[in-house]
């Protein structure tokens, strides 16, 4: 038995360790500051300063940046943080890091409530605290991390309701489930699925009809602001764009070769394939996400040493009987659903709700190993050595190798560009060579492009159709700033202009020997290679 004092100390230590891994050098941008982070941060700052988002929309229900609509909770909840720290990278990432840290404690409570075991609760908290998946998404501004915290809290209160039959827990759990839907897109599918299935799986569920009805009413009321936009593109635009059924995400030529009934065969097969890949040991412990932006070099979402614990945990899960087995299995099985319905293979962000149940399974296996090692105490030392080495190696790869390998995927260099542009005379035209035209958000975040000026231009584009004009994109020109593809041979002679080029799109030979062009600055990558050139035309 663990004494109360020792238990308290242990959980405190685990949370402290997790907080260190999440907050250490959080505001640094050695690997870069990704455009989605900048979008969250800027909109939060903009709401704080002007009461409106980048399109000048007053307190929107959905925010929009680039061609994407996103849920509002992260933006609104970050405003107090911005009022303290100002528009910095730290302010943007703070809420995510805090969510990831609190998640450790919630993981402990959920596991304890599920298995009534202090030991498994503590071990699960340790797994979450050290988890590469949780650390990675806590160290960037990811609203999914906030939604995971809310969902876990909702689940914990749901368990409390099931165990105590107190209606207060039921209503409180619903509030947190709705919060998770306000935080990120994935829970908008998972939460209703989870709640409806949980209610239907409850014994004699019809007998509690009044409770479910009142719960449904509460959810509808809380979620009403989103529900009224259900039929507008703001609500479904994102899901439509990334869906498994969207032609854009299909394999080249895939749709063309399908007849109707073959489609019936291949689409479900593809869905099952994508779904099963979330349970693949190779993805969970070996290869990880297919997008470099969402990976730490050489690491997956869990450590390799956790693979045997995962298998042991599954074995234990199948063997033991516990009261809320159904609810837990439901969470485990449905959480990758929304990710599997999109075309990307093993998307660790869209499947972020899956983090907690897998961590619990690993924690369960960890409990078995610890029990076994009691007989061979020297093995504990080996275990501690393995864990210490792998965690240190992960931190090394995260802080040292990731900026070198993934800087391009993290939009490295825009902060340095903005700093350089800020000191240039204000009569110069600034043209950023960016075919995606998304780099504008960095110029907004770092205060180079004035908020009011951008809002005025952007609101003219959506023209009062903020929620329904999903296909109308951002402006390419705001005052003296332009974000577009540059036709270099034609434009190199333009007067009073500063061009900003990624090093991959313009070679030094194309400007170095021209006396009418002046290289103002080269931005170097963390690996000391050129990343951007800032070139001024000489009149």
């Amino acid at each position, binding site marked *: 038995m663990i004494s109360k004092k020792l238990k308290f100390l242990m959980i405190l230590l685990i949370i402290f360790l997790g907080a260190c891994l999440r907050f250490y050098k959080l505001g640094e941008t050695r690997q870069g500051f990704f455009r989605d982070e900048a979008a969250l941060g800027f909109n939060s700052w903009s709401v704080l300063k002007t009461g409106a988002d980048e399109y000048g929309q007053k307190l929107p229900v959905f925010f929009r940046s680039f061609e994407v609509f996103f849920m509002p909770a992260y933006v609104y909840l970050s405003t107090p943080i911005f009022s303290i720290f100002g528009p910095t990278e730290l302010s943007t990432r703070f809420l995510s890091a805090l969510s990831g840290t609190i998640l450790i404690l919630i993981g402990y409570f959920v596991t304890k409530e599920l298995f009534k075991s202090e030991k498994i609760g503590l071990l699960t908290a340790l797994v979450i605290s050290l988890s590469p998946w949780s650390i990675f998404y806590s160290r960037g501004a990811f609203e999914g991390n906030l939604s995971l915290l809310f969902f876990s809290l909702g689940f914990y209160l749901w368990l409390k309701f099931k165990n105590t039959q107190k209606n207060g827990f039921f209503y409180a759990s619903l509030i947190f489930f709705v919060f998770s839907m306000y935080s990120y897109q994935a829970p908008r599918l998972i939460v209703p699925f989870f709640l409806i299935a949980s209610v239907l799986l409850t014994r004699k569920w019809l007998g509690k009809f009044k409770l479910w009805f009142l719960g449904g009413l509460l959810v509808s009321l809380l979620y009403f602001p989103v529900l009224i936009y259900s039929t507008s593109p703001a609500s479904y635009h994102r899901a439509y764009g990334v869906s498994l059924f969207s032609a854009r995400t299909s*394999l080249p030529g895939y749709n063309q070769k399908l007849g109707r009934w073959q489609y019936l065969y291949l689409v479900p097969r593809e869905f099952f394939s*994508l779904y099963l890949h979330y349970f693949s040991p190779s993805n969970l412990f070996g290869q990880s996400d297919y997008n470099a932006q969402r990976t730490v070099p050489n690491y997956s979402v869990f450590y390799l040493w956790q*693979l045997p614990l995962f298998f042991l945990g599954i074995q234990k899960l199948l063997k033991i009987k516990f009261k809320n087995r159904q609810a837990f299995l439901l969470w485990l099985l449905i959480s990758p659903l929304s990710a599997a319905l999109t075309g990307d293979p093993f998307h660790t962000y869209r499947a972020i709700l899956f983090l907690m149940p897998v961590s619990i399974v690993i924690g369960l296996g960890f409990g078995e190993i610890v029990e076994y090692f009691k007989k061979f105490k020297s093995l504990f030392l080996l275990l501690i050595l393995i864990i210490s080495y792998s965690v240190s190696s992960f931190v090394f790869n995260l802080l*040292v190798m990731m900026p070198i390998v993934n800087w391009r995927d993290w939009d490295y260099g825009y902060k340095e560009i903005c700093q350089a542009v800020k000191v240039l005379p204000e009569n110069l035209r600034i043209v950023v060579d960016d075919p995606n035209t998304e780099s504008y958000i960095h110029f907004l975040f770092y205060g180079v492009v004035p908020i009011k000026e951008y809002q005025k231009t952007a609101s003219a584009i959506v023209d009062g159709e903020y929620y329904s004009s999903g296909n109308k994109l951002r402006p390419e020109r705001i005052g003296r700033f332009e974000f577009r593809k540059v036709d270099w041979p034609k434009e190199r002679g333009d007067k009073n202009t500063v061009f900003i080029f990624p090093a991959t799109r313009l070679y030094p030979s194309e400007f170095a020997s021209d006396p009418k062009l002046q290289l103002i600055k080269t931005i170097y990558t963390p690996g000391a290679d050129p990343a951007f050139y800032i070139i001024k035309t000489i009149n």
Partner: protein
Amino acid sequence: MFQNMNSKKNVLKEFFQNQSLISCLFLTIIITPWFWFLRPGKIFFNPEFKKDIQEARLTVIWERGETSNTFPTTLFSNWPVVFIRRRLVIVMENLDIGNYFFAGHPRARVGVEEKQKFFFFQFLLLLIGFTNPKIKKYAKYLLGYLAVVLLADFIFKWRGFNETFLFSVPLLLVISLGMEKIFQLPKKWRFIFSSLAGLEIVAFLTIF
């Protein structure tokens, strides 16, 4: 001599407990696409240790060069770690159940060319197979076999269509156990399952 043969037959019969499992095993082998496209004699037994160590060393030289060769770099970036990590990735790839039943997706999206190995209905049979009580009898053999194949995979880096067929053995047995359970169901359910399986085979043949 005949006596000897008979005793061998009995051993075989006893091992599979009854004829029905042997029939299911044969049927499974016949309807498995993996065996339709298998080209024998193409298994690599060359561990390529030298080449891989060399490649791991080159990676380490690059990593250490980029990070100005500090103490943590030498501790976390060294050739044995890189060498083992790369081989383990291949081993784990073969533990991935999706690669056997859903070839072409989603790894094909990221450039890995794959062929169908099993049908989707065989995946259902695999799941059902785990519920067959007879599996307990074979469990330790299956685990032992799997451990040996995984070790061989670590050494020889098998990841191709032909090389990995050794992984099919445990799958075939569990699928057969599942099929045996299906054949024990009432006629109506057997008919429905066989029809759907037949439809999938036809769909496969018309597409590929």
